[in-house]
């Protein structure tokens, strides 16, 4: 494995902080915030390791969401906070908000008057839009698979 440990630590800490911040925004109680930190840190650590193996951002996000979803299903849920809440706050740091903003800003740039060439911004817009769509699908599907599998087992 070829992973810079300082980058892994940095991304893990930032993921945990972002998840905790959004946990407060979503009105998770203070005593449950460590669970939010843990879910965000786990998700970002897995994604960083996967990106270090030259995986695409979509595949890395899928792996992180799948592992987070499975971990939260396998271990007993902490009292006072739902598994779904931990799913969401854990994956929120991986939502490609930056790419989404760049995609929409790129659309504005295309329609700007006196634009010399529209080909380059258009290709960037398409790339960012596709990346946002695929990453969101990867996150949603990765989280849903463990839940849906468990439901099928219960129904049997």
């Amino acid at each position: 494995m070829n992973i810079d440990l300082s980058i892994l630590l940095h991304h893990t800490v930032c993921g945990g902080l972002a998840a905790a911040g959004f946990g407060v925004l979503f009105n998770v109680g203070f005593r449950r915030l460590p669970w939010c930190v843990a879910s965000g840190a786990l998700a970002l650590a897995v994604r960083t390791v996967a990106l270090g193996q030259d995986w695409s951002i979509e595949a890395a996000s899928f792996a992180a969401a799948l592992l987070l979803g499975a971990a939260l299903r396998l271990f007993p849920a902490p009292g006072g906070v739902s598994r779904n809440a931990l799913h969401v706050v854990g994956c929120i740091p991986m939502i490609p908000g930056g790419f989404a903003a760049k995609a929409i800003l790129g659309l504005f740039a295309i329609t700007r008057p006196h634009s010399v060439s529209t080909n380059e911004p258009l290709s960037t817009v398409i790339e960012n839009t596709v990346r946002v769509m695929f990453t969101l699908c990867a996150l949603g599907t990765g989280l849903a698979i463990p839940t849906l599998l468990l439901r099928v087992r219960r129904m049997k």
Partner: protein
Amino acid sequence: MVDPSETRGRESLEEIAVLALDFGRLLMEAGGSAGRVEQITSHVAFGLGAERVDLRVGYASLAVTIGIGPDAITRISKVGLLGVNQRLHHALCAAAARIERRTFTVGEAREEPDRIVRASPRHPDWVVALAVGVACAAFGRLLGADWTGVGPTFAAAALGQLVRRQLALQNVNVFISATVVGFLASTLCGLGSRWLGSHTVAMNMIATVLLLVPGVPLFNAQYDILEGHPTLGSARGVWAAMILLFATLGVWFALCLLGEGR
């Protein structure tokens, strides 16, 4: 163990339907997915003595048909603005599980929704603002912003959250609010980043408005579609896309104003 429905007449059906809808509506407004809303509404209705429950979960309304023996009743309820409140969400699920165990009469269960709402406090606004500031600064680092940009991102995002809360209290349209907060927060962040000499001004400005990204509706939209509610899922997806568009419009205005968009 108590008999949950003291009377088996029309009044009982009406009360069960209204209570089940109250739980479903509150859960929707607290950020519950359609599958969860169906589950909770059914738990409440069956726990209070219903023998059949059919629910339709829409974006702006819920409709339920409750049946006991040969009698049935259909009621519809409007759903308010969809937000996220995990403490309320958890308390509603716990109460619905208690009602399902048939430990409540209809009369006792009637008090539950109001009691739960009163007993689910929110964090103070300043705490939420600080937390959002920390989250956006962390986001900025994950997106590649430099360390100099962390301070302006934190301060502008925290201020943006305070403004967003005030606009919500004044019932300002959420899309307009997204544009206003996006513009204000990214402008302040851009000015602060320039003053401190950050090399990633545009990235800092984008990170500042990530508090506006509707993460829960985006995830719920996918859950709803995967769980067989494509109409509701699509509606949530479109709403989330519109919020993103309006928030980015605010950032775009700010980038043009500061000359960072060129």
